[in-house]
């Protein structure tokens, strides 16, 4: 029983991280109908830059905020420089460009930092909390993960639901040409969407790094899980990303805990297939998704 509880708790904290990266994928997909395969690599880059800042003696939280800010700028830059010129071209082009960017970023990181895995500090203690007399597999850092991702989710939802900026972002996502006619600067909002995705991705990168072998490739598998989560959630809904992330995190954790961690990627792909067969449009039906 305690094994089950610990595996479940582990699934929740990793699920929240998948949710953050899935949110990044969703923010971009709902606005541009592009899957950003480089999202994980961009997060890897910003986290490595944070580790450089830490090595320079900067405090953890300064480096943390700097990584999020760099993620914002990097996201905007990628949209402006690489994605915008592809407008109106074949749907395959963004796929090739984002995968290309993934390879290039991992190459650059390998050249600068080397391919060996290194350590990255956690914001809080990673040893398990004590409940009653027993230690559980849920640390202060896991609590921080859950809180940080929830804060991000709520901030994004408030932006979309309660501000005119968010209203215009939603309108642009539904019909860009019409929004443009109403005076909305759709191009700027697309850049903003990519930038916000950059922030969400960076957060995921910072949260994964302490618990994994921190190398230029450490986000590859996380991207696969986040993609699974985003698809389960319907690819267009921030709330869907959260729930998809939790489902994926729990499934992966159960597979790892009961069947062996080597089977985890396979578990994610099986989950993706089952989800697509059961509900091709995602767990959230189209209307409820689109209203978020």
């Amino acid at each position: 029983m305690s094994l089950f509880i610990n595996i479940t708790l582990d699934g929740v904290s990793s699920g929240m991280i998948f949710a953050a990266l899935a949110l990044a994928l969703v923010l971009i997909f709902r606005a541009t109908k592009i899957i950003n395969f480089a999202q994980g690599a961009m997060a890897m880059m910003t986290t490595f830059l944070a580790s450089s800042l830490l090595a320079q003696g900067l405090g953890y939280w300064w480096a943390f905020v700097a990584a999020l800010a760099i993620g914002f700028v990097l996201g905007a830059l990628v949209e402006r420089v690489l994605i915008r010129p592809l407008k109106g071209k074949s749907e395959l082009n963004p796929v090739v460009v984002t995968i290309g960017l993934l390879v290039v970023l991992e190459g650059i990181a390998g050249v600068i930092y080397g391919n060996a895995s290194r350590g990255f500090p956690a914001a809080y203690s990673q040893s398990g909390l004590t409940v009653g007399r027993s230690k559980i597999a849920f640390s202060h850092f896991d609590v921080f993960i859950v809180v940080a991702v929830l804060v991000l989710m709520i901030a994004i939802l408030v932006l979309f639901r309660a501000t005119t900026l968010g209203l215009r972002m939603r309108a642009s996502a539904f019909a860009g040409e019409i929004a443009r006619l109403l005076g909305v600067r759709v191009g700027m909002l697309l850049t903003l969407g990519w930038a916000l995705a950059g922030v969400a991705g960076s957060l995921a990168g910072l949260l994964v790094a302490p618990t994994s072998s921190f190398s230029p490739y450490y986000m590859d598998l996380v991207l696969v899980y986040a993609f699974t989560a985003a698809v389960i959630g319907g690819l267009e809904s921030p709330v869907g990303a959260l729930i998809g992330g939790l489902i994926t995190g729990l499934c992966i954790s159960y597979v790892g805990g009961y069947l062996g961690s080597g089977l985890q990627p396979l578990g994610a792909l099986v989950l993706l297939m089952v989800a697509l067969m059961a509900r091709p449009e995602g767990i959230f039906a189209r209307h409820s998704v689109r209203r978020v």
Partner: protein
Amino acid sequence: MIAIEPEPHAPAKSEGKALLIEGLSVGFGGLLALDQVSLTAFQRETVGVIGPNGAGKTTLFNIICGFVGADSGQVSYGGISLLERHHPHDLTKLGIARTLQGVGLFAGLTLLENVMAGAQAGLRSDIASAFLGLWRSSREERRLALRARELLDELGVGAYARYLPAALPFAVQKSAALARALIAEPSLLLLDEPASGLSNDEMDELATMIRGLRSRMGILLVEHHMDLVMSVCDRIVVLDFGRVIADGTPESVRSNPEVATAYLGDEIDKSSGHSQAFDDA
């Protein structure tokens, strides 16, 4: 740091702003969609643009909105050229709003949100208020929601404010689309076939609505329904094969033989003489 700009308050539009179109031509491949078209719409004037399918009416709208470029000619509003360095998103700043053929509401937004999305967009103040002060933003949001609700009420569809468009009758959707254009407080309103798909009763209501707007703004109306055009317009411009074949009051257009030719085809053509009909166009 982003400076907080004062909200671009729509000013009382200056008198005498006019839409001037002169010698406008545009071709798609070998086809001349508009051929030396000239027309004027003064402030507080309702001008109808009619003509058979393919006469170039929608192309004309698309050029005004900046969706399509022109080959030659001039289009200006209030002295500002609409052809040079002009983007569709600048249109509302100039005081021009457009409704679309069909409906064109955002499918995933409620009617109220659809109308709110049509309000004058000040992107910089938008971002500033969203990121720097949610308090200010939500106050702004409430003011906007109130205004949107007023407009929906004015057009008689306020009861549907919280519904998604797909679930609503066509006429309701069309009214919401009109409200979305009006919330930008335009001085020139471009209406693209507002009557299509409406019943006779609904069309009467639309006519009343358009007449009510006449005192507030100039209106350029593209429409197939002759009765509506004749009843609401101060002036009517008739297009045929991209050329202006008539321009005058509803009465003069109604009695113009060329117009009858364009609409009814060859029978009249033969009796009145085709070449003569086109020479004085």
